[in-house]
């Protein structure tokens, strides 16, 4: 469960990366495709041989959704409602080993490379919990 402190830390991180969302989103996706090639199966229409325009575009989209989630951190269910429908009924991204856990790790790696020491254990914990909450919310409508 996200504590008030966790929420503050997540919002702080987002404040620090404001303006670099596309770069961060693209880097996270690119890392995910590199480390977990199976995740590419959801993007057969993408050029995943390099950090393509498509990956940049999608990274920006993903980060915009996460930014919205951060802004509405007290009501993730509502903020992510449409995306939850999309992931459950259209995209059908595998929920049990929900690829989101791989995206969560890669996003954290991207943030850690940028923030260095500022990616403290407390921040790490808060981000991990936040991404977990996002994944759970997105998977709610699966069945």
């Amino acid at each position: 469960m996200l504590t008030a402190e966790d929420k503050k830390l997540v919002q702080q991180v987002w404040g620090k990366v404001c303006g670099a969302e596309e770069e961060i989103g693209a880097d996270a996706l690119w890392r995910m495709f590199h480390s977990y090639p199976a995740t590419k199966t959801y993007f057969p229409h993408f050029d995943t041989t390099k950090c393509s325009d498509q990956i940049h575009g999608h990274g920006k989209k993903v980060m915009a959704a996460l930014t919205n989630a951060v802004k509405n951190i007290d009501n993730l269910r509502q903020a992510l409602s449409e995306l939850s429908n999309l992931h459950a009924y259209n995209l059908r991204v595998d929920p049990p080993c929900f690829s989101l856990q791989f995206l969560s790790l890669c996003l954290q790696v991207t943030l850690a490379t940028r923030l260095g020491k500022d990616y403290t254990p407390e921040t790490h914990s808060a981000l991990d919990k936040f991404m977990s909450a996002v994944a759970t919310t997105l998977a709610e409508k699966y069945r």
Partner: protein
Amino acid sequence: MVHWTAEEKQLITSVWGKVDVAECGAEALARLLIVYPWTQRFFDNFGNLSSATAIVGNPKVRAHGKKVLTSFGDAIKNLDNLKGTYSKLSELHCEKLHVDPENFRLLGDILIIVLAAHFGKDFTPTCQATWQKLVGVVAHALARNYH
């Protein structure tokens, strides 16, 4: 047997060469206990684990973190025989320590993040993928003798 390309071996050893095993090990274990607090169940006799600050400063955590990462170094020296290298440790984690192998994956992920924070942009996607593979095979080797 796991196949490692020359590039992968190079990426592993070049990163490892710059790692302060004591510091990095301490940090990785501390983060495991902070980010995934249920893992504290294995360390009842470690004293004060009541807060992130307590965990980070705990001398037993630091010492054990160093031990764990030193063992990781053994894996790196024996990339072509991880099974043999970790055979006894695998038995130990199963029979004496009773650690759910899922925790090895968690620690592996934590280590990746610690390396990322430490190396910044030098921890490239290719580097991450190689290390992701390494932590995965180490976790697998540790789980291998479970019964």
